[in-house]
């Protein structure tokens, strides 16, 4: 598991090595890190130590996986052995379920870091007569906890008992006793529960486990599935209240908490070249701010990708790692096209400085795109990221969804101090509005590319619509595509300059656009 880039709110990352502190921060309430990327940020340090947490969700929502990840991370990374008491699947089934994630349960059991006890209750095999209690269950749990010296316990899914035993009254009072007992043992427990109609769990487990409740949800919208996680309740602690997208893939679970960000990113003063000397001049002579977000918008064929290629090339020349998300072309297409204007990105790709991620927008839901992009950034740790074109993502989700997703993504990139360039394809000049309202307020620098026709000649134009915090050229200037790239024509830079006030909202953009 690679950690570190998604360092949110200055919060500590779950340490990945053994022997480090497993106690998260979060005020007075001691917390236990889950080691699940994102979840520890939302909960500001993990689950309440020594208390039970309820994880509920429908079938296939990832409850068991989340619970097991909590256990396995505890055993592997935090020196906290665990007990898994499973009521639905036996040891072998559970082990093979999570083997694909690289969890070797039998090995952990062998190493005495994990104890697994499969509790099978078959109603048809059991006759009930008279009073009883569930001391047998307590004995087993106690025995398992002692065997490995467990600090973490997972009960998955204890509600199965309701199907196996007839006496609800006994069962309920015994469950109450069980959760109290778990607290007395001081183990951090995670109890899974099946989502019920109109209630968090079918059997109302939330009545008993009320310290923390996490809800998992798996929705399919327009044939695209998204998983979401929400911390419904966390007694005695602040927590993010939004629904956070999460993904289950070969690396396990990751949750994206980036929208929980306060506006706290650093604002570095150093600058990076746009790769076009003349454009740097227009941007008060030095180019973009490092860690800022640049939008390049224009209709088809105005040179957006070329401008992005210049930027990538310049970054690679500085020896910076670049990650480029393509939602329209394949990397090969882009390499070929850019070679035709004299930008050869192939060596950078070969040397590993430049990495491409090409995907069809329609292949996943927005959340999945967000999570995969997030992961790619976390894995590659680039200094520069290009998304070409970001507008293609907008076809995947609703307006608000797209905005929320881009906000999260851009916030994340800014926090990681990654300079990002997003290209935006506008179907026609009039549609600048759409891009504008969706993302313009998130952008630090906005460059508009436009073609106009003079006589029977297409004239390529470029202007800096805004660039926060610097004196930039206010002029639209003409450029040509040459065999050494994008070439701004002389005279353009010698223009009056304005200093943008830090503006929010779309009024300014719209007004400027009307002038063009």
């Amino acid at each position, binding site marked *: 598991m690679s950690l570190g880039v998604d360092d949110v709110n200055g919060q500590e990352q779950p340490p990945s090595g053994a022997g480090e502190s497993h106690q998260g921060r979060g005020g007075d309430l001691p917390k236990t890190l889950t080691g699940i990327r994102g979840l520890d940020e939302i909960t500001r340090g993990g689950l309440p130590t020594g208390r039970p947490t309820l994880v509920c969700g429908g079938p296939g929502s990832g409850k068991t996986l989340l619970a097991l990840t909590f256990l396995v991370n505890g055993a592997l990374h935090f020196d906290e052995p665990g007990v898994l008491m499973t009521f639905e699947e036996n040891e072998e089934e559970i082990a093979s379920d999570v083997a694909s994630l690289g969890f070797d349960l039998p090995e952990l059991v062998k190493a005495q870091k994990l104890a697994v*006890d499969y*509790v*099978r*209750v078959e109603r048809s*095999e*059991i*006759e*009930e*007569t*008279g*009073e*009883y*209690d*569930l*001391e*047998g*269950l*307590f*004995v*087993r749990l*106690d*025995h398992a906890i002692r065997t490995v010296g467990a600090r973490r316990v997972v009960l998955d899914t204890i509600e199965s*008992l309701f199907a*196996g*035993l007839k006496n609800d009254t006994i069962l309920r009072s015994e469950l109450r006793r069980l959760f109290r007992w778990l607290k007395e043992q001081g183990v951090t427990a995670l109890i899974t529960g099946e989502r019920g109609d109109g209630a968090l769990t079918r059997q109302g487990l939330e009545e008993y486990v009320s310290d923390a409740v996490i809800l998992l949800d798996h929705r399919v919208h327009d044939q695209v599935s998204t998983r979401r996680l929400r911390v419904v309740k966390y007694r005695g602690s602040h927590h993010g209240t939004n629904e956070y997208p999460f993904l289950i893939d070969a690396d396990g679970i990751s949750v994206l908490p980036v929208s929980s960000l306060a506006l706290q990113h650093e604002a570095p003063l150093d600058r990076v070249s746009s790769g076009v000397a003349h454009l740097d001049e227009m941007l008060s002579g030095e180019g973009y701010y490092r860690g800022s977000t640049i939008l390049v918008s224009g209709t088809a064929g105005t040179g957006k990708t070329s401008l992005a290629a210049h930027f990538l090339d310049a970054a690679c020349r500085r020896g910076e790692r670049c990650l480029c998300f393509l939602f329209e072309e394949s990397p090969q297409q882009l390499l070929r096209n850019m070679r035709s204007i004299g930008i050869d990105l192939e060596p950078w790709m070969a040397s590993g400085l430049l990495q491409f991620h090409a995907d069809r927008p329609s292949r996943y839901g927005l959340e999945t795109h967000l999570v995969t992009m997030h992961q790619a950034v976390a894995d590659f740790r680039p200094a520069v990221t290009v998304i070409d074109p970001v507008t293609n993502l907008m076809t995947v989700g609703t307006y608000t969804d797209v905005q929320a997703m881009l906000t999260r993504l851009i916030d994340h990139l800014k926090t990681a101090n990654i300079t990002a360039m997003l290209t935006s394809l506008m179907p026609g000049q009039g549609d600048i509005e759409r891009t504008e309202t969706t993302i313009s307020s998130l952008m630090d620098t906005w460059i508009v590319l436009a073609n106009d026709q003079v006589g029977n000649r297409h004239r390529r134009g470029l202007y800096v619509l805004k660039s926060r915090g610097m004196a930039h050229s206010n002029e639209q200037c003409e450029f040509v595509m040459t065999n050494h790239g994008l070439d701004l024509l002389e005279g353009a830079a010698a223009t009056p300059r304005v200093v943008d006030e830090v503006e929010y909202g779309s009024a300014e953009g719209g007004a400027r656009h009307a002038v063009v």
Partner: protein
Amino acid sequence: MQLSEHETATQSPEGQTYSLRLYVAGQTPKSVLAFTNLKQICEQHLLGRYQIEIIDLMENPQLARGDQILAVPTLVRRLPEPIKKIIGDLSNTERVLVGLDLRVRQ
């Protein structure tokens, strides 16, 4: 009352020997009651062909897994097969007999 570890009887000619296990967790009123009830039922219906083994999970917690014990007291009929389980203090003789297949379910 003393819970005896083994109550053995010789096989009677007219039926199979019943091999029974009673799981308890300490000498609680419930477990004592269950044993008393069980003893009575066996004497009445299985005279001379039963064997009761008491397992106290407080002493042998590791034994709970094998027979999938959850509730206590739990009576397990190990023989004749198939294995049967009756949980509770065995206060309802009728149900115990049904559970042990000594009486047909009505």
